[in-house]
């Protein structure tokens, strides 16, 4: 890697080529982050000039019923979605990391949801989950079971987790496949010569070598879990634009763009960002610990 370090005049060119991206990052990303932080201390209806509100937007959050419900929904969702997505996509990647006939077909099939329109996919699942003429309930009743109300409040959490995990397996699979293919083949050859069994090769070579991918995937999936919106909204929306399973992003959207409460929405966005940051920091520490051991 050291040989690829830019030298002399090249360094300037690196800067020149990075400038557009850096400006975009500075103004676009950081600009909007700081704007959100600023707005969270103001009352702003988007129409009239903002007025200072101190920390009242944050103080009001515990009493905001929609926000608290969204918070719990999001936490419960993340608690199921993150481990399931990571584990299932790891197994799919392990299964597809070999030369079997039709492997590219399966890779494409698992990746397809990632590149499909969330709206179309959401509508498709609405139809699968439908109570009376849904595919799933048809199958259950055909086998003599009782139909399930898949999107009723008590079951909706699991139903949307299934859809979201299904939609995320492809992305995770790609990351794990890349990680798997970066593991030098010699390791396995040496281990085989030493008489290591296949589970030992998995446990002592594959999994430790995949630690960086796993870490990356956990961070990514956690961020996605806290930002989950599209499938859940499409599956649980009500006729008047509400949702029976509101998530944090839905609550932010509704406060900002429906209730004229940009300040409250910004405060919620800041809370969401802080939660994601704390979790990411925890992952970083865990990785350091594991990395030191490996």
């Amino acid at each position, binding site marked *: 890697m050291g040989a690829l370090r830019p030298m002399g005049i090249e360094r300037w060119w690196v800067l020149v080529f990075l400038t557009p991206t850096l400006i975009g990052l500075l103004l676009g990303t950081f600009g909007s982050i700081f704007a959100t932080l600023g707005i969270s201390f103001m009352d702003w209806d*988007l*129409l009239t000039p903002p007025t200072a509100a101190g920390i009242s937007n944050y103080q009001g959050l515990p009493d905001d019923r929609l926000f608290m419900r969204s918070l719990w929904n999001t936490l419960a969702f993340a608690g199921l979605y993150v481990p399931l997505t990571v584990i299932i996509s790891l197994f799919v990647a392990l299964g597809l990391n070999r030369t079997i006939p039709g492997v590219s077909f399966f890779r494409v099939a698992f990746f397809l949801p990632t590149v499909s329109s969330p709206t179309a996919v959401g509508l498709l699942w609405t139809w699968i989950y439908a*109570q009376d003429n849904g595919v799933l309930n048809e199958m259950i009743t055909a086998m003599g079971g009782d*139909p399930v109300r898949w999107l009723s*409040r008590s079951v909706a959490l699991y139903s949307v987790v299934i859809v979201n995990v299904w939609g995320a397996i492809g992305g995770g699979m790609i990351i794990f496949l890349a990680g798997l293919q970066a593991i030098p083949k010699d390791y396995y050859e040496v281990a085989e010569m030493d008489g290591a069994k296949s589970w030992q090769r998995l446990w002592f070579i594959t999994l430790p070598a995949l630690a960086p991918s796993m870490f990356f995937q956990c961070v990514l999936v956690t961020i996605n879990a806290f930002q989950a919106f599209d499938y859940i909204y499409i599956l649980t929306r009500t006729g008047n634009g*509400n949702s029976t399973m509101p998530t944090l992003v839905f609550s932010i959207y509704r406060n900002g763009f429906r209730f*004229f409460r940009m300040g409250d929405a910004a405060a919620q966005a800041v809370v969401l960002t802080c939660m994601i940051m704390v979790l990411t920091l925890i992952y970083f520490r865990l990785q350091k610990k594991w990395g030191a051991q490996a």
Partner: protein
Amino acid sequence: MKHLTTLSLVLALSSGAALAETDITFAFWGTPEEGKVWNEIAAAFEAENPDITLNIEVSDWNSYWEKLRVNFAGGSPPDVFAMSPPLYLDWKSRDVLLNLQPWIDAEPEVLDGIYPVTLEAYETPDGYFGLPRDFQTIVLYYNKDIFDAAGQPYPTEDWTWNDLKEAALALTIDNDGDSRPDQWGLAADLYGPESFMAPLLRSYGADLVSADASETTVDTPEATEAFQFIYDMAVVDGSIPDQQTVASFGWDPFLAGVTGMTLKGHWTVPDYAAAPFGWNIAPIPQGPDGRVTTVNSAGFVAASTTEHPDEVWKFLKFVTSDAGQSLAAQIGLAVPIRESVAMSPAYLEQDTAAIDHQMFVDALDYARRLPSFRGFDEWGAAFGDTLDRVWTDEMDLSEGLEEITIYGNDALDKNR
């Protein structure tokens, strides 16, 4: 906008034209088809006013309100934009709407011949900050094939809500023997009040909020009785399909041919015109306190910061005139605000569907507007979110009504 004007001015001068052109923008929610008709209306307006260019911007309902807020926040709102009466006073309270009163005072005859109930929606103690564009009244739609198959008589104008409830139960049928219905009596909105709950409550002598919109009034004895009626239909009889079922039929189970009746305004006529079954309309049923339906008049408002208020006024005059209203009537989605047009072939003999279009006009006799106040959307969320828990049987009705009152009043207080 300013740059466009300057640019067109420069162009006009350089091409030697004598007229200075003004650009104004009209934004509204609707379908691409409506956009097409409005482009025709714009062309007719420009023909009469060669010095004005009218830009039409159409978006779907949700994107429309988002775009509008973002445009305002960015300092470039459209000059004229569409408004819905329940949200009107909220927008007005934020001082962003142009007061049209000075122009109306100069030409008061512009309002002559417009249905008063549509004008009242935009009247405030400070004057008019908007004008009606068209109106909707809610009627009862029924599927003749479903009524015939069940041997049920069609709804009549003598129907009470109890007649509707009994017919709905008789039309709720399990065809495939799995002991779950696959046909229901009535498709009705159980989340927003416009088409079903507001008319029902009011015909029971109750209402959603007090007259001055200071209090939520859904837990009075009359309101409780009305909600009990809805609960009996939706939960006990199961004659109103639930939210999931409605979603699985593309949000319109009536059009999907699986409900005998629905309650809607005229906006649905062009869609239903292509339905593969026979259907007709009847007046909304009566309650213990008489017959009440909802009237809602979408309208036009202007941004207080528009640089061309005189041109905006010319546009408003044109689109509320006989000529403008006749052009708009061909869309077939709404009812014209002028009696001269609503009672003319332009509306009554439109080629959407051969039904009694006059019934929507006659309904004005017993129609009432939805409440309008600052924080309407927030109040509506407290209302719909809580009712959802009642319809899914997670919460008692009485508990639900109590909670709507508490959270509804919170929303009202927060927006005072």
